[in-house]
């Protein structure tokens, strides 16, 4: 059995496709490319794949990852070319490598790097950077509402930004446009979403008229892309 990690993009309207649907999309692409995928045993065999941390709905990405198990080895360039031939337009395999490490894809991803574009007529970048520093060094508390499906209740949880953000810096693009480069920490205990991040800014008197987020990379413990 061989394990291969693929890095892919998810751009344009594909940002509206949920994590679960991307999983099926990938499995169908593997079928179309006729790759020798490994299946589980049992009544309803399923393809052995695993994914990185779910990307929020509405966010485009240039650095998503999935892992696929194969029953025989396929030359890596052929695998990339074959998959790309059957992918939807806004999704491309950028690279792939065979992987024999023990760590799961999920635990390899330690950080997520985003570019967040903000449109606003009222932001001062200097003030914003001060706030970002506070968020990283001292921490800012914000509340998150979570729907508890089992109890059908909405649970409020207080979260500190301190342990969730590794790096954040804002730059002025033009008078109404600001771009923030931000690196979130990702862990099984929880991680920050771009929309949470904007919410914290808004709660701290930053006026955001419109924003969109692009995930640039999933990074490992050394802050390097999982695959270059």
């Amino acid at each position, binding site marked *: 059995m061989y394990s291969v990690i693929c890095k892919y993009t998810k751009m344009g309207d594909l940002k509206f496709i949920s994590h679960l649907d991307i999983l099926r999309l990938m499995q169908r692409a593997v079928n*179309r490319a006729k790759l020798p995928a490994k299946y589980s045993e049992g009544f309803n065999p399923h393809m052995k794949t695993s994914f990185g941390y779910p990307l929020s709905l509405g966010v485009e990405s240039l650095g998503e990852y999935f892992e696929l198990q194969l029953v025989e080895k396929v030359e890596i360039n052929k695998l990339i070319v074959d998959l790309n031939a059957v992918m939807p337009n806004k999704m491309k395999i950028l690279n792939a490598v065979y992987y024999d490490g023990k760590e799961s894809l999920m635990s390899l991803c330690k950080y997520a790097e985003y570019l967040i574009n903000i449109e606003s007529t009222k932001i001062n970048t200097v003030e914003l950077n001060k706030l970002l520093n506070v968020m990283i060094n001292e921490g800012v508390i914000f509340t998150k509402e979570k729907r508890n499906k089992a109890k059908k209740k909405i649970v409020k949880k207080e979260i500190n930004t301190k342990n969730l953000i590794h790096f954040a810096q804002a730059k002025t693009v033009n008078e109404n446009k600001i771009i923030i480069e931000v690196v979130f920490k990702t862990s099984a205990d929880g991680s920050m979403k771009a929309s949470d991040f904007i919410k914290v800014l808004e709660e701290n008197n930053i006026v955001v008229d419109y924003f969109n987020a692009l995930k640039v990379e999933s990074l490992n413990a050394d802050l390097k892309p999982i695959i270059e």
Partner: protein
Amino acid sequence: MINTKKLDKLLLKAEKPARYIGSELNEIVKNKVDIDVRFAFAFPDVYEVGMSHTGMHILYNLLNEQENIWCERVFAPWVDMENIMRENDIPLYALESKDELKEFDIIGFTLQYEMSFTNVLNMLDLANIPVRSSDRDDSMPLIIAGGPCSSNPEPLYNVIDIFVMGEAEEVILELSNLYAEKKKNNLTKDEFLERACHIEGIYVPKFYDVVYNEDNTIKERVILNENAPKIVKRRIIKDFDNIYYPKKMIVPYINTVHDRVVLEILRGCIRGCRFCQAGMLYRPFREKKVDTLVKQAENLIDATGHEELTLASLSSSDHSCICDLSTQLLEKYEKRKIGISLPSLRLDSITFDLIEKLQEVKKSGLTFAPEAGTQRMRDVINKNLTEEQILNPVKTAFDLGWSTVKLYFMIGLPTETTEDVMAIKDLAYKVKDLFFDRPKEDIKGNLRVTVSAACFVPKPFTPFQWVAQNTMEEFYDKAKMLDREIRDKKVVYNYHAPKTSYIEAVFARGDRKVADVLIKAWEKGCKFDGWNEWFKFNTWMETFEEIGVDPDFYATRRRETTENLPWDFIDIGVEKSFLIKEYEQSLNACTTPNCKEKCSNCGINKKKIGGVCTRV
């Protein structure tokens, strides 16, 4: 193009935004400047339902194979999205170009179900297109409709410009090409309609009027335009084996009702169940050759990556080579873990062997449709199925390890008695006993028998088109009696809402007088009537009252066979005299053999409107 930046911001507020974005694999995008006819294929229900409809995939790809036609898709937005669109002035748009529907030349609705009629109106309105054809000037798109419900088009006569009768693969191209000529020669809409009504299978309702008797029955139809034919013939494809079938299909991102490759293996049905409209409408029986089907399966699996293949038809085991076909496909795709499914199968010993083999790849529940509880009742409807033929395969299924079984029934069938209804319970209990009357060591799994009872709706062009539907009280009495009597943890019983079936019955056999009720009810907020959470029965009843139309006249009235029916001007190929004969046979519980055993002279073979019946 609509304001896509605005849409982009709003989509995250909608449940399942993927319904509204298009850009799926195998979607077809063309350059507008090369196009003569822009066609919007409109499905009056949500994306997940529409994308599961094989006919849409066929016509979408067929039209798009024409260089000068671009066919796009549009579905009914779910209510949350509709509100977002109305609040933000986003008109209904087609998924491929994101152009609003108003910019299209032709909008073609498929009418699969009477309860989606209000969605047709709602979609036009969302596109800022007046719902009444008389309110649309020449700048508006041509609104056409087809599908099984257009076999009685009259309830939508003042909405739809042109109805396409019957199988659309040929006529849709003839009509589109004629439309391209209309544009080239700058013809008016009326000039175009006059030419269009010469095409076989085209019905232009505005060229006709209807005169009624004092008792509200139809006196006669009047032709208002000399070009319009007196009788409109349904189109039938002659060479079914060579009929167009797509080599690829759009692969949705989200789960749809049927996420699979669908292969249409045959059209028509030899069985002649007397309640079944499809069984009459799609005659004659025609099948595709095994080689054709294997090739088509390969194209579609390669193009979609689907992990399941369905062999679809009204009765799949009636394909003369079903075993050969399934075995070939099974052997070919076993390794790739692609499951083959065969719905609508009559379970005899041969097909059972087959289904067992298919289940080795993927196992699912078993479904049986006895339709009625007693033999007399099954003879009335010509189901041609004995209790033995129902219970034997169930027993075999249990022996082979199945433990979930679904049983489909109808209540309210003609001549039904309390005994017939109670027999549904008896049959379900016999199934249960079969499971437990086996040696203890053979009993595996947790038995679950699901019994579903639908309310019978008489449909046009069936031998039951004259019968009275049960009243809602009768339906509720029967449905609830079963609910009281079926008291077993292993047997789950559910029934379809009689109220929905009542409104469905009105529109199934409605004439032009129900058209205004439809529009009014929609104005009062009726839409998604097939969805329980949106069905507003009281609004419907209020509207009938207001307009002065008696719904019982259409649903619960028995007609004489001499009455002029609203759909009598349509020739489906099957003769009325045959339907009358079948109706009379049914009242005596006399069965008619299937077409393979003996030709019953339904008329389809005599008229040769599409070619002779190949099975006689």
